[in-house]
């Protein structure tokens, strides 16, 4: 790859996913070699990819790698099928499995990754919380207690994203600029980026950046 002209694009599901992946890439010292963008919501991925495929940098052949990511939520099999189909419709490329790279005739090599891990339900927040928990177990015992208390009071479970947002609020800085900023939270109370829960995503990001050759 020619870093001056070639683009390795990581497409994320929403701004929060993008911020987490940017922070992970920075930790891996590959942030400068990756370009991050996000699509608005999961239902728009297919249209987003079709549009990207006609964008100038794709048509000019400057995008050399495209890593498409999304969250499994409650249905990992269905989410993988939908991302694989969206890639196929936009680029005519058949993806074999999450994290495997496929060449495209006149476009970039493409891979897709479904968070947290292939076949597992969850989302990037699941990965991030697992790594944050291992870094700050004491803090998470407070958050868990708080979550249990709220769940008991409202007689129903909270979504996993609620725990993530509580953690990110707890990790806010004192300044007005830092409040309700996931970027500030990731900076101030970072997860353990070396945590094995990030391994699958880390590998895909490093391959996208050309750090390790894609198989």
């Amino acid at each position, binding site marked *: 790859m020619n870093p001056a*002209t*070639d683009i390795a694009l990581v497409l994320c599901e929403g701004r929060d996913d993008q911020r987490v992946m940017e922070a992970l890439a920075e930790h891996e010292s590959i942030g400068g070699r990756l370009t991050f963008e996000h*699509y*608005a919501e999961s239902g*728009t991925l297919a*249209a*987003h990819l*079709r*549009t*990207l495929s*006609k*964008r*100038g940098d794709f*048509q*000019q*052949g*400057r995008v050399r790698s495209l890593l498409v990511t999304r969250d499994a939520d409650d249905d990992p099999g269905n989410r993988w099928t939908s991302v694989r189909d969206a890639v196929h419709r936009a680029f005519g490329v058949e993806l074999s499995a999450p994290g495997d790279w496929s060449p495209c005739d*006149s476009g970039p090599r493409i891979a897709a990754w479904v968070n947290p891990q292939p076949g597992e339900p969850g989302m990037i927040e699941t990965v991030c919380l697992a790594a944050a928990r291992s870094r700050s177990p004491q803090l998470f015992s407070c958050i868990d207690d708080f979550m249990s208390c709220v769940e008991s009071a409202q007689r129903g479970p909270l979504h996993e994203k609620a725990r993530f947002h509580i953690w990110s609020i707890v990790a806010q800085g004192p300044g007005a600029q830092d409040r309700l900023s996931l970027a500030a939270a990731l900076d101030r109370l970072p997860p353990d980026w070396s945590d094995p829960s990030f391994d699958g995503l880390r590998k895909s990001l490093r391959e996208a950046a050309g750090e390790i050759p894609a198989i």
Partner: protein
Amino acid sequence: MIQFLELKNFRAFEHIRFEDLGRANLIIGGNNTGKTSVLEALVLKLGSGRQLKALPSTFREQIQNDEFPSYWSLLARNSDWEGFRIETDQGRVFEELHPHGHRQILEEAQGKRSSLGNLQKDQFSLSGFGPRIPTSIIPTKASPPGFIADLFNQIAPLNPENEDRLQQLIRESIEPRLKRLRYARPKGTRTHLVYVDLGSGPMLPFTQLGQAFCRVLEIYCEIFASQPKVILIDEIENGLYYEGLPDFWNGLYEVLEDQDVQLFATTHSRECMEAAHKAAAARKEYPLRYLRLDRRADDPQKIVATTFGQEEMETAIRSEIEMR
């Protein structure tokens, strides 16, 4: 309407093909990707004898008369390889190579073949052409005011409905104060011009109202007076302020549909692309296609073409994807 356009070995293009053309087609792409060459190809395929003779300097103001012969010899991208070819669903124009450097430009439509021109030792001569589609051309450079006034005069006396329509379109798209337009040569002036009544003070010659007014007046006058089936406009946004672009496009789509005209226009402007899309999306049938040209980074001699429409542009605007 023309459904597809294919160019082989023409100007900078080795081979490009635009599919699924629309009522309005906006040609976009970076500098030197061949946007204007697409318009030139359409003139070769569709234009009248007068338009063909003037083609070398129609879109390229800097070209001098002594460059005209070499212009024709440079139409083929690779002149040693084969002649150029311009093909639509309504026939094709192509170049045939003969011994001793003689090249013949031929036209083939509805099963008939005729000679369009000959090129020998850089000397080009137009030999004739078959029935052509009435085509209007509006280059970047503004036409002389007298020419625009003459166009207006062709509409007004003979077709008061179109005159009213023209005034309404200009009112809606560029100048809400407009009361009426008049073709006149006031005492003490040498030429007839279009005069504009803005409701207060004396009527003004249209040339006093700025570039946007002149541009819009010229486009509408050309359509109503010349009644083309195809109109080619280079840098369509020229002189138009971005806030007025949606109204301009609304009016233009109406006229294109009413008068059954197909538009091919180049633009550099993102505002123009978005305004064209928003106005198109409000119509019963989406009339717009974007024809995009890109130079490959891995082979800068190669230009690729793609066509996109409503879905891609909506996604691009919603997700702030740059599509210029």
